[in-house]
């Protein structure tokens, strides 16, 4: 089965608000609209927030 693959532009990241990635193979219940492109700074903020929740 062919998967939809999203790829971030150079220097950018993709996020669904939960995880950050450079490229994503969407699962069958996932949609491109769930993902948006973000900058490195925004990614760092999301990761910091996720780490704070884990700790």
């Amino acid at each position: 089965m062919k998967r939809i693959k999203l790829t971030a532009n150079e220097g950018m990241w993709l996020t669904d608000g939960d995880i950050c990635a450079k490229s994503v193979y969407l699962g069958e219940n996932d949609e491109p609209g769930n993902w948006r492109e973000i900058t490195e700074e925004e990614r760092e903020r999301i990761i910091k927030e996720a780490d704070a929740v884990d700790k």
Partner: protein
Amino acid sequence: MTEFNEQKIAEVTEKLTRASENSTRLYDVGFTAGKKSEYDAFWDTFQKSGSRIYYDRAFADGTNGGNMWVFNKTYRPKYTMKPVSAVSMYSYGTLPYEAIASVDFSDCTDFYSTFSYFSISGSEKKFPPIDIRSATRTQNMFGWCSGIREIEEIKISENTAVQSMFNGMTSLCEVRFNGTIGKNGLSFASCARLSKQSIKNIIGCLSDTVSGMKITFSKEAVNKAFESIEGENDGENSSGWCDDLVSTKPNWTIALA
């Protein structure tokens, strides 16, 4: 003037020597018994005479480089350990393979930060098989462990929580799951050295029935592990990755970070 008879002198000398030897022997026996009694008193208290099941921070070491728990010196548990809670149990510590292999984690539910910043001593940096089938919390279980290169086996069930176990674990090359990953997603984004065999094993363990789950791998690890031409780092475009693995789990979102 007293006259000393040579025979008498020899007899007295022998008696004194014997007495001295006996006294040394007695001292040694007493010293050993004392040490044993101190060992028993400490570990009987520390391990509640074998009934302890909450081992939160039990063998955690300091963050300032101090190493309090040294295998076969200060770390010599008297009773077999079977924790139900192991929050930060070995955080910041350094112990050999056999020290961890002797602990039975099969009833343990809370693995929060259990081995964060932990190192396995010895050159192989191999972590023994561990049964986490009862786990309900695993955040940072192996967080920032730079001293573990391989985890021989992680036994799980479909109900095992496996979230955020490998945060910051940059040195991990080999890991083998035994069971089905289905309770929640997980991330190997920090594991840039993860091997092809390990990636294949992990994807093979992903549940075929759950939906909405996500798994993240290091883009660097995938590109290296599956590269079609050596040095090209083109693994994510290879058929070994796309057709043989990604396409087998359409119910999972697979991310490369």
